[in-house]
């Protein structure tokens, strides 16, 4: 019954999306004005029904109901409970249902909370949200029904890909989707504003918290995904330029640009058309990403199943949504009036630079990700990896980071470089000192060298906007900016340090043998079998001692899962303040020795710490904005109340 219940809820949600679209769109044409009152309730109930449908699928997975096709194909009764639960979205249909659910809930949240938009823009926004949702409901119900029953229930399920049987599955996909799909709100806002032509600071102030919210989750989701891939795959890397990683990076780049341009629009009433364009582009990138991931056109560890029909369906959705939005933009952008002027040397000027650079990086990543598809159409089989992405990305990242250090020190509208010359000299001096210090080390690649030289100066520069301010009086939003920029510097330092100073050792070791990797001495204590709930493993206790200090024991494993039958390497990590030791157990060599792969990665954890700081910065900014808005509303009410009393 649960499956049918979930399916009915999903159909009802789709029907409500249709109602929401009609009730939102008709009043804009001047007819059916009485329908307008239905839009917000329709959005709210639609979100609720989505959540109910999703909950039904979670229940089915937790119960391991093997009469449901999806559960039988992707779950197993012997799996630990947490993976039964998280396995709900560890497959194509489930993850698409999660997508639609997040989209429905975002729409409901906007409908219930957002009161600052003009009513007509609000109607157009919610109609836009419903339009996009309808396409994905159709996709889910027609070609990816998660609730399909089997004529004959299976005796046992096929199990979940062991690589996904990790706590990362419980956090990474939902967080990422909240960001990824949360950007649909920015898209709908942009559509709404284009339809009613009401683009201005008030609109930007209403849009900003939604962009910030999605961006925070996207940042956290990418950070979590990177760390998960780092320790789970056992390859020692934290970013592989896999198409799916790019698919999450592209919306993040667009959303980061949007976040900054929406601030310019809110504070200075400039960059109007550009902000709208970015709103369209950000979620378009989410949809392109979904197409890349779910259609199976590209080789990726995230491609659950290759199904041409699904690919065609998503491609059609993509064409309609993105094509339609761009067409609307082309028709209406000319009627969006120009914003306020500003000089090149100004906060706006720096933010424009940052926006253009982010867009260029986005273009580089998009081009590199799609190139294998283009080449295949011409009959060549290629793959594109770090030799392309790293230098090409750096070409635009480096100037962007330099301007990021200086931009927040500039004043709005018009400023002089001379006014901030002391700060500039300090920043340049720090870069110079770091570069000279690093030159002593030989064998650092060019990019890590630039990264390390910049990171320290960036960290100091990011704190400069606080100079001369009373820290307790400084607005939360400013603190947020400072923290996020500081996080970028920290992450950059981690990335560059990992790349420059990592030491790797690949050995076949006898039991009792000690191997040196960087400052660590690592002894293979033995090899023993261990058993888990749905796997058996060979475990190698390793005693690791840092510069002759007392030993800590690590337990890397080579696991064999029995359903599905597959082997995975479980790496073991040891984190110190100055880096991370990373060990992987391989196979037994012909002569009874054991393959070990050992890395010492100085300051590598800063990569993800930086990511978390960036997200925290976003959270502070969001809190600051929301609190300020609430205060403003409270003050307005107070004034109204006083006036009313005086009037009596």
């Amino acid at each position, binding site marked *: 019954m649960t499956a049918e219940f979930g399916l009915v809820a999903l159909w009802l949600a789709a029907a409500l999306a249709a109602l929401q679209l009609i009730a939102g769109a008709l009043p804009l044409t001047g007819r059916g004005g009485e329908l307008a009152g239905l839009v917000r309730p329709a959005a709210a109930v639609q979100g609720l029904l989505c959540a109910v449908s999703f909950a039904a699928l979670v229940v089915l997975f937790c119960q391991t109901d093997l009469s449901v096709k999806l559960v039988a194909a992707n779950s197993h009764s012997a799996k630990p409970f947490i993976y039964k639960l998280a396995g709900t979205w560890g497959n194509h249909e489930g993850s698409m249902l999660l997508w639609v659910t997040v989209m429905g809930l975002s729409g409901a949240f906007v409908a219930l909370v957002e009161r600052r938009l003009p009513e007509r823009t609000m109607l157009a926004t919610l109609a836009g949200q419903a339009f996009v949702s309808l396409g994905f409901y159709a996709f889910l119900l027609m070609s990816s029904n998660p609730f399909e029953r089997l004529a004959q229930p299976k005796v046992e399920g096929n199990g979940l*890909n062991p690589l996904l049987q990790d706590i990362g599955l419980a956090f990474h996909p939902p967080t990422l989707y909240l960001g990824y799909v949360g950007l649909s709100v920015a898209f709908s806002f942009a559509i709404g504003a284009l339809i009613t032509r009401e683009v201005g600071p008030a609109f930007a102030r209403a849009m900003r918290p939604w962009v910030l919210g999605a961006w925070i989750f996207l940042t956290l989701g990418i950070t979590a995904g990177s760390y998960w891939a780092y320790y789970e795959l*056992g390859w020692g890397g934290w970013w592989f330029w896999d198409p799916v990683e790019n698919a999450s990076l592209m919306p993040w780049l667009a959303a980061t640009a949007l976040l900054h341009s929406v601030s310019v629009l809110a504070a200075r009433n400039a960059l109007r*058309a*550009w902000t709208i364009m970015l709103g369209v582009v950000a979620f378009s990138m989410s949809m392109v990403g979904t197409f890349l991931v779910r259609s199976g056109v*590209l*080789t990726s*560890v995230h*491609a*659950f*199943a*290759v199904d041409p029909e699904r690919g065609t369906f998503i491609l059609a959705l993509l064409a309609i949504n993105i094509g339609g939005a761009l067409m609307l933009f082309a028709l209406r952008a000319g009627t969006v009036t*120009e*914003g*306020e*002027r*500003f*000089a090149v040397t100004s906060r706006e000027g720096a933010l*424009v630079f940052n926006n*253009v*650079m982010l*867009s*260029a990086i986005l*273009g*580089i990543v998009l*081009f*590199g990700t799609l*190139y*294998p598809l283009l*080449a295949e159409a011409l009959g*060549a*089989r*290629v*793959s*594109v*990896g770090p*030799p*392309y992405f790293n*230098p*090409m990305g750096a*070409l*635009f990242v480096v100037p962007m980071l330099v301007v990021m250090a200086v931009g927040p020190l500039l004043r709005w509208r*018009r400023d002089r470089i001379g006014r901030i010359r002391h700060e500039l000299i300090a920043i340049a001096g720090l870069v110079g000192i770091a570069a000279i210090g690093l030159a002593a080390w030989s064998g650092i690649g060019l990019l890590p060298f630039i990264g390390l030289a910049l990171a320290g100066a960036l960290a100091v520069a990011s704190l400069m906007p606080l100079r001369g301010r009373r820290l307790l009086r400084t607005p939360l939003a400013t603190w947020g900016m400072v923290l996020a920029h500081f996080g970028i510097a920290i992450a950059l330092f981690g990335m560059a340090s990992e790349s420059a100073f990592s030491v790797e050792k*690949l*050995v*076949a070791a006898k039991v009792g043998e000690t191997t040196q990797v960087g400052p660590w001495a690592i002894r293979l204590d033995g090899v023993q079998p261990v058993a888990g709930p749905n796997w058996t493993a060979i475990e190698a206790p390793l005693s690791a001692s840092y510069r002759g200090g007392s030993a800590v024991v690590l337990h890397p494993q*080579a696991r064999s899962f029995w359903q*599905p039958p*597959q*082997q*995975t*390497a479980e790496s073991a990590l040891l984190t110190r303040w100055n880096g991370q030791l990373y060990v*992987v157990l*391989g*196979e037994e*060599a*012909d*002569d009874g*020795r054991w*393959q070990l*792969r050992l890395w010492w990665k100085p300051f590598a954890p800063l990569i993800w710490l930086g990511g978390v700081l960036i997200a925290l910065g976003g959270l502070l900014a969001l809190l600051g904005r929301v609190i300020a808005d609430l205060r403003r509303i409270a003050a307005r009410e107070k004034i109204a109340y006083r006036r009313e009393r005086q009037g009596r």
Partner: protein
Amino acid sequence: MTAATMIKPKHQRLVLLAIALVVLVAAGLLAAWALRNQASYFYVPTDIATDPPEPGRAVRLGGMVEKGSLRQEGDGVTIAFVVGDGKARVPVRFKGIAPSLFVEGSGVVAEGRMNAGGTFIADNLLAKHDENYVPRELKDMNEHQAKQVVAETQ
């Protein structure tokens, strides 16, 4: 600069648009140029025999691991094997932990480069992961090869 010398809003918009377009087009051209040089092409052993990539250039090699060719070297972490496609054979060396489903007689995609001596030095081996994930090249190649085998035996 005074307010009077600041350009008109309409011009400012055009200038911004022009700058953005120039940078984006430049980025696109650079990307196209870099992709031509940096994309890693896919080869089967026949391609390597007829038109080998220049040594040191990053490429990918796909084929079947020949039966009886896999051996481990004395250091315990380097393996050598031969990848064939029925027509040509390429010796491959790989230092690292091979994927668990990497066995003789199965398909493999190796990422790496040819050395001057005609051996393929692999940095990474992609083998069949599970039934849901097969490197795409491997999947297509197997179908292609199956057709060839059918054609040869008829």
